[in-house]
């Protein structure tokens, strides 16, 4: 472990102190015993994008000296893991949505992890009771509303989006997009399918245009006057506030946390899990513990405007400025299990084929 720490973690520091020649000699010597080196690494399959994960992984390598190797892919990793079976090189999976976590559980490629640190860092509702997956960050799916044209007290619940008052004033991204599917799944888990179907029909008939673009594009459309309200994730709003070129879109909209008087706002998680094939189990658990710790949680919050799952870690200044909110406490596993039903519901309603008015 010592040797590995030198070879990977503090390469930059050594580079400065020892200089080129010594470094080369060191590198040659260290590259010889590959089997030794392999003991200090962890292999990651990540659904999440590199620009979010790489800085945090970089800190992990620097702090622990464990080398981290990553494959980034936003689809197909479940199939790859399943096919590779017990010989899979992957130790850890990072996911962007609770849906991925559920798929992994159903494919039976995860192992349970018992860790006091993880249990202390992550509240019960954001991890699997059997320790097969752990939530790392949270984002809320909120309502973006026009600052000029919408009075905040006319829209305080998700239900209001289907209200005829908003006819021709709602924008949406495709309801087949992963966050939308999970959101609609959460409605089914809470309201049941018939009520959700009526709601989705209502939203569809309120649409100002054919569903398109991502959450940022909805805020942009509100700023440009195409529509007045839309659903969006909180971190997109934070990113817009922080970006000088996009700040105008955030300023033209207000952020409304729906259903504060009743069940609370829908939240989704990004998460991590250890594979059942993991050969570097200790390092894998170490990585999860690091990701749920103060430093990594702070990095997530600072860089991507997400909510840390670990109680006591402060969100970034921008996120804190939105104030506290009441999150829906429905177990996310129940939500994930309704995803297929949600996707079919979207087909039945024909949401994405809406022409707008």
């Amino acid at each position, binding site marked *: 472990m010592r040797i590995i720490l030198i070879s990977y973690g503090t390469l930059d520091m050594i580079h400065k102190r020892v200089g080129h020649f010594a470094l080369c000699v060191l590198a040659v010597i260290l590259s010889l015993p590959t089997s030794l080196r392999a003991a200090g690494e962890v292999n990651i399959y990540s659904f999440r994008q590199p620009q979010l994960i790489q800085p945090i992984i970089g800190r992990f390598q620097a702090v622990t000296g464990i080398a981290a190797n990553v494959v*980034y892919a936003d689809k197909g990793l479940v199939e790859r893991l399943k096919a590779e079976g017990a010989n899979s090189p992957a130790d850890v999976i990072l996911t962007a949505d609770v849906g991925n976590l559920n798929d992994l559980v159903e494919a039976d490629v995860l192992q349970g992890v018992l860790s006091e640190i993880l249990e202390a860092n992550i509240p019960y509702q954001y991890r699997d009771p059997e320790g097969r997956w752990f939530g790392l960050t949270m984002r809320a799916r909120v309502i973006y509303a026009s600052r000029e044209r919408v009075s905040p007290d006319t829209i305080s619940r998700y239900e209001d989006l289907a209200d005829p008052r908003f006819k021709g004033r709602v924008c949406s991204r495709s309801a087949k997009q992963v966050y939308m599917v999970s959101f609609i799944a959460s409605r089914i888990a809470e309201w049941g399918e018939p009520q959700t179907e009526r709601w989705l029909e209502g939203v569809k008939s309120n649409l100002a245009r054919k569903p398109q673009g991502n959450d940022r594009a909805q805020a942009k459309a509100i700023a440009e006057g195409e529509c007045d309200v839309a659903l969006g994730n909180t971190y997109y709003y934070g990113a817009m506030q922080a970006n000088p070129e996009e700040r105008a879109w955030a300023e033209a909209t207000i952020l409304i946390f729906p259903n504060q008087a009743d069940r609370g706002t829908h939240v989704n998680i990004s998460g991590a899990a250890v594979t059942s094939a993991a050969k570097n189990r200790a390092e894998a658990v170490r990585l999860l513990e690091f990701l749920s710790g103060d430093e990594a949680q702070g990095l997530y919050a600072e860089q991507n405007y997400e909510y840390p799952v670990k109680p006591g870690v402060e969100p970034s200044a921008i996120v804190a400025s939105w104030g506290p909110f009441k999150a829906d406490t429905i177990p996310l596993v129940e939500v994930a299990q309704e995803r*297929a039903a949600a996707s079919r519901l979207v087909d039945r309603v024909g949401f994405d084929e809406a022409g707008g008015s």
Partner: protein
Amino acid sequence: MAEVRERVSPGALARSAADSVRKVGPDCWSGAALCISALVTVPLAGVVWLALFPTDGIWSHLASTVLPQYLRTTLLLMAAVSGATLVVGVATAWLTTLCDFPGRRICEWALLLPLAVPAYVAAYIYTDLLEFAGPVQVALRELFGWTSRRDYWFPDIRSLPGAAAMLTLVLYPYVYLLARAAFLEQSICVLEVSRTLGRSPWGSFFGVGLPLARPAIVVGVSLVMMETLNDFGTVQHFAVSTLTAGVYDVWLNMSSTAGAAQLSLVMLGLVLGLIAMERLGRRSRRFHHTTYRWRPVPRRSLRGGDGIFACAACVLPIILGFAVPAGVLIDYTLRSSHRFGGRFWTYLWNSLTLSSLAALLAVATGLLLCYTVRLGGGPIVTTAVRLASIGYALPGAVLAVGIVVPFALFDNALDRLLRDSIGISTGLLLSGSLTTLVFAYTIRFLALAQGACDAGLSKITPRMDGAARSLGLAPGAMLVRIHLPMLRTSLLTAAILVFVDGMKELPMTVLLRPFNFETLATHVYQYASHDQFEQSAPGALAIVAFGMLPVYLLSRTIAAGRPDQRG
């Protein structure tokens, strides 16, 4: 003289020549072709295997809801894109080959440039330009004092016609490329006969020039159709529900790999059906020259209005398909904070190596397969060779899963075998290795190589084979001494097409790559998928720039490939 519709005597002659070759031809060619075809269809087997699992009523759900929509959208998109690429590709090829007008020499090669622009990049750029909040509509609103969407009409770029336009702009070069090569091969003798028999210039074009170029044009259009069918980036960005969008939805949102695999196979059936129909349509026709009396077609000089019109017709696709996207990318790159820093050069190196290896492998494989069919492989070999090119018709991510499954199966079986027999664990030998990735690229783009080889071989008269064989050349020696020199242009075309497509390849690279491995395309995608396309402009620009060079080379080669230039 070339034969278009002669069905009896010379055709029979050609067949008897082929028969004589078949009798002598050794079976090792057929054997090799069958082995390669089998290897190349392994991913298809993987997809079929996945399709065998239960799908939990997905079909009845799809049939009662979105399937008709998927089918309609897909067929409309394919019809629109193949129709538009046909018109643009053939018209520009005819104009630059057989006419002379101001700017022709530049247009000749510049018309190929859009090939270097990935479709999803064009889609991102045109959305930024043409959407409600984009510069074009903002300028219009300021100019006319409109305030909201309801005040005026503007075409919605995120629509079926929008997607068709994007795909046409970047795909028409396939048709242009192959049509131009075919027109260049044509001899004035044929067209003169047509003119002396009383056909007008237009009549000669539609009655003789076009039908003679048909095999090449068909290859071009079928490549376009397959690209259109499996495109995901553009249709996803534009929220157009095609079958491919449906495949991804069933797979990722309904968590049904089996359903997605079945839907992909339906798509595949669609493509195979279309190709079979076309082959049936020209079954007994021959398209090669039968004499050595060849004279180049003199260019018709277009002056005044005609010249300007011809110039505009050729320049417009270049501007829309290349100049606008490239200009926007340069603009983004100049404004971007982190330009070519970090690991950029590693990504570039990875892209170049992968694409070159795939190009070499695909051309060698494609040539071997097509040549074996020419030697007269019989129905089994012919069918196997046709099947080998279907990697191009499956959506990339589905093909990738089709590769993951059998490769991991092989790795695990080998590992178990060696552990049980000699106690050595090999782990996963192929899965997640660069070998697998090169293999995947080769399978995916084999159709491109096969198409170009096929078109090249079809232009060489079988009498040549008959003569060579009767003079004692074995098939291998005949390939090296007779066909290869004549196929030089076609082979280079094949290699460059595969290379340029390899530079743009995304979904397979993402899933199949080893740890810590990035190409330019995956680097671009990580930002673009997060709506930070501007951040990845330098990478996208590099894909375009490194695609341009071979494309230019390609055009030069084709011009030099004209029979009178071959010496």
